[in-house]
């Protein structure tokens, strides 16, 4: 498969400009613009319905915007590609509601996500190779799922599913990770571990994390973008945005 490649248009890894999405007249995104530098980790916060998940849907090809531009890696117009092509370019995603393959074991979930040829005949004739097995073992270790490797995905607890999905992202080894509410439903201890995990991932990946949990966002210690009613309200450190009048009004002051 060949994915069309344009000349380098921007240095940003991810570039969204004036993105608008409406659902039956309801404007979920209105002129959203956002830039992410290569290697950057960004936290996105915003009240319920601000459009955070919709933004990820647009980036990953699930939702087509009515207006705007979305470029990845400076060359790829994501609006011309479908979900598969976007994933193959190196955009990985963790869903808000954890979605793992319930009838597959934990290690098979990671195997399916692992970076490897995805064509029908490649998967038909190639089994799990030793190198793949090593990757799986390493990821199981990182996500603390080694003892659960033979259990079915559907049998895991909510928090374990969240970690498994993060593990699948790691296995996929994308250039950009979109992580939607990774600590929802986790205990404080689990949240702390997840923050550590994400910081580790951020060392060699670019990451966008959506999260409501302020303590968690503080722990990440990265630049924060506040979304409100489908566009960017403020951007800066958590302290800067927390001091912003408008942010206090729409979000923190609730």
């Amino acid at each position, binding site marked *: 498969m060949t994915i069309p490649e344009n000349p380098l248009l921007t240095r940003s890894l991810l570039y969204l400009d004036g993105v608008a999405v409406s659902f039956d007249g309801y404007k979920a995104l209105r002129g959203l613009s956002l830039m992410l530098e290569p290697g950057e980790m960004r936290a996105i916060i915003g009240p319920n319905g601000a459009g955070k998940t919709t933004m990820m849907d647009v980036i990953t090809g699930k939702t087509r915007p009515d207006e705007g531009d979305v470029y990845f890696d400076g060359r790829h117009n994501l609006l011309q590609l479908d979900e598969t092509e976007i994933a193959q370019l190196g955009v990985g*995603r963790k869903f808000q509601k954890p979605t793992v393959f319930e009838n597959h074991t934990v290690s098979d979930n990671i195997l399916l996500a692992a970076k490897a040829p995805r064509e029908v005949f490649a998967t038909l004739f190639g089994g799990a190779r030793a190198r793949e097995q090593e990757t799986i073992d390493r990821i199981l270790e990182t996500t603390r799922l080694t003892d659960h490797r033979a259990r079915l995905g559907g049998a895991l607890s909510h928090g374990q599913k969240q970690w498994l999905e993060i593990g699948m992202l790691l296995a996929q080894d994308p250039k950009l990770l979109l992580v939607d509410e990774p600590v929802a439903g986790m205990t404080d201890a689990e949240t702390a571990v997840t923050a550590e995990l994400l910081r580790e991932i951020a060392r060699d990946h670019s990451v966008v994390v959506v999260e409501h949990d302020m303590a968690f966002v503080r722990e990440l210690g990265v630049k924060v973008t506040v979304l409100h009613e489908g566009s960017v309200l403020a951007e800066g450190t958590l302290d800067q945005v927390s001091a912003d009048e408008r942010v206090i009004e729409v979000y923190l002051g609730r």
Partner: protein
Amino acid sequence: MITGRFLAKLDRLGIAFIILMLAVAIIVPVLALAIPAKSAFAIPPYVVALMGKYLCYALLALALDLVWGYCGILSLGHGAFFALGGYAMGMYLMRQIGARGVYANPILPDFMVFLNYKELPIPWWGFNFFPYAMAMVMLVPGLLAFAFGWFAFRSRVTGVYLSIITQALTYALKLAFFRNDFGFGGNNGLTDFKDIVGFNVQADATRAALFSISAIALVIAFILAKAIVTSKYGKALIAVRDAESRVRFLGYRVENYKLFVWVVSAVIAGIAGALYVPQVGIINPSEFDPGNSIEAVIWVAVGGRGTLVGAVLGAIVVNFAKTYFTGVFPEYWLFGLGALFVLVTLFLPKGILGWLSSLRRKPTPAPPASLAERSTIAEEGGSAQ
């Protein structure tokens, strides 16, 4: 699909199934041919033909389970592939009749003489040649499935809508084959076969050989299907079944994954039809009847979806019951079949095989139990955020 690695994966049930089928392929012909008819162990020829028919249905059920049990494609039109394979075999058998027909035309089958055909229509060319006919047995269903799947999967038609189109497909073919001017014998279909590769189709020995070939075909198809579903491709296929959109976000080309298994399944169904026709002695448009395809779905559901062995078991059990009940209370069979389906879905959601294995308390990664559950999972997968 490398043999060694594959054999290690074959479970005990699978091995038992293969051994049983191979044993049956040897023992039944021996009991039918070599034992004096008066002996208590002798199998009468009509029973051999009947069991051969069941094995063809089992092969169809296996094909259906491959797409429905492992990829979530509920085909309500698999009978079409079966019938097309059957017609390809029927055309070969018609051409073998040669000048022995009622009208004694060396080239044209009787129905063509009757309808005043002057020459053999092009689709019939080459069917006197066995290897060509066998290639068509696989190619015709395979190509139809490829064309159908190419459009359907690319445009992301899924669930009930896909099932309805498959149903429409087999219905449309039924209407086409009913027409005399379509050139395949119309209403009456193809029958009065004389011989197959030089052997009399009616002879007991031929019947026994066809039975054995059907059993061996079932074993080969089972091994192939098992190799497919236990490969990494098969794992991806199950993932597609359970959370299709999630698989796309992992970078898999879901439509190609579906297309491959769909075509393989159609080819197996075609082979099943081709083995069926010489054993029952006729193929006509009623084989395209939507009801037949739905019955095949019931076999798989009854036996246990997503288990392969269960599909075979279901086809044999249900058809055995059908033979018995249509003999005893012919009017009530359809009610019985309906009741069976309802009872199984309510009380044995994983089919006979799932029930048996739950008795042994071995948790198996079985597919979602019922259609209703299946569709909610599909929706969750689709709307995953």
